[in-house]
């Protein structure tokens, strides 16, 4: 597996996800667009991104933590199957995928509000 590189990983993901691959790519791009748009709103309003980013990160971690017990189920296993530290780490990292989607939405909402307040104050 020493030849694992981004192209190989993309090919494996494409084959693993089958028909879900392109919808998920589109969803990922939409989330990326939300991040860019939220950042642009903050920049236009001259507001610091610190609070919206923090809100997004916290939301990602919380949502990831909540999703983590479901990850073993996704592999047809039970939560009790997690044994070593590497299992918990892997499950949490996988749970961060849906967590990040929640986090991006929270960031965007927070950035929009923050930018709107900035405009009102200005």
């Amino acid at each position, binding site marked *: *597996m*020493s*030849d694992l590189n981004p*192209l*190989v990983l993309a*090919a*494996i*993901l*494409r*084959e*693993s*996800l089958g028909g879900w691959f392109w919808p998920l790519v589109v969803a990922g791009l939409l989330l990326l667009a939300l991040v860019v748009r939220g950042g642009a709103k903050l920049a236009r309003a001259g507001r610091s991104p610190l609070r919206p980013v923090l809100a997004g990160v916290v939301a990602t971690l919380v949502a990831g933590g909540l999703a983590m017990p479901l990850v*073993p189920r*996704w*592999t*047809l*296993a*039970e939560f*009790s*199957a*997690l*044994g*070593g530290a*590497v*299992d918990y780490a*892997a*499950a949490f990292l996988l749970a961060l995928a849906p967590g990040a989607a929640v986090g991006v939405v929270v960031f965007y909402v927070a950035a929009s509000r923050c930018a709107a307040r900035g405009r009102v104050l200005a």
Partner: protein
Amino acid sequence: MLDRRTFLIAGAAAGLVAPGAARAQTSPAPARIAIAGAGAAGLSLASRLRGRMPNAKITVIDAKEEHYFQPGFTLVGAGLWEPRDVVFPNADFIPRGVEWVREAVAEFDPEGNALVTTGGRRVAYDFLFVATGLKLDYAAIEGMDPARIGQDGIASIYAGPEAAAASYRAIEDFIRTGGVGLFGRPPTEMKCAGAPLKITFITEDLARRQGRREAVELIYNAHSDVVFTVPPVNAKVHELFAARGIAVNQGHVLTAIDAAARRATYRMAGGEVTLDYEFIHVVPPMRAPDAVRASPLPWQEGALAADGWVEADRATLRHPRYANVFAVGDVAGVPRGKTAASVKWQVPVVVENLVAEAAGRAPTAAFNGYTSCPMVTAFGKAMLIEFDYEGTLTPSFPFIAPLEELWISWLIEEKGLKGAYRAMLRGLA
């Protein structure tokens, strides 16, 4: 005098395409390449060769329309996957520009650089890749009929997706009724030597989960004095078997079963022994297909000769007597290596060496015998065991301990392998 193959290589070397060190080299040689078999090795070879030798005439010969993802048979046998999860149309993986002859190989003629199909078609080649896979020799076990899998307490996940599903039903019946369950492996070389152990672990775990562990007695009949040929893995499996109350018999080779009486006969060093059972998981002896065995290609002497495995250098997979013949996958007469994981590393080696040779360079790529077995030890747990010809453990991921039962190894088995396998068939991984 130059033969056609030498001429092609010399001519191609003059027009070699070398786009850059970072990219794989290609060869413009208009060679005729025959690939016997459209299994994991055959399709992967076709994909890689198509990309690396764009002017070659590549012909794949195989009658099978369906491709089986055999590493998934264990999960079908565990009742987790459906048979449809492990069946793909072969047509989806034949690369564009590759001819697919939908017939089996009837005869190999390496002296004449040709093979003959069951339909009588003669396919001439400059290079031949023998990737026929192997033959499951159920007939070598007296009284064993693959049609009975799923009935009379007989299971065998090797026989195909439906047989694997029928095996799960047989396991469920056995756990419900209780009694003695027999497991084991054949004395021949075999594909995925971990699978007989996996199905033993799965049966034990299912019985425990259903509160029926006390009702079943599980016995693993090893054909030799070990249950796995890699010493640390053997020790670990023995440890797990002991902890789970699975008995191990050594030196038991299954020779016959009486399905009606549910009795199995084993050959031992000192004679025969007959064991009664309520359930038996049969793993048949495995040999090269008949067309290969009847050809001059197999080893002529040594441990790999009896079952007709194709003679091949273990590092280059090249035939020592027929320099334009390579053996890849299950049929290759090399130690170990009858897994999709081995194919994943064998194919780039033979393709790289062929392209190098076509470029006038010395072929230097070598296969180290890498093979891998995500050894399922319970539902949700596996050990990611990887090793080479020498039996040295060669873990790919430093954070995954090979002899530890982990969910992350199960994750790779349940979610990762199929995608990686399909990407391999397309020459992308």
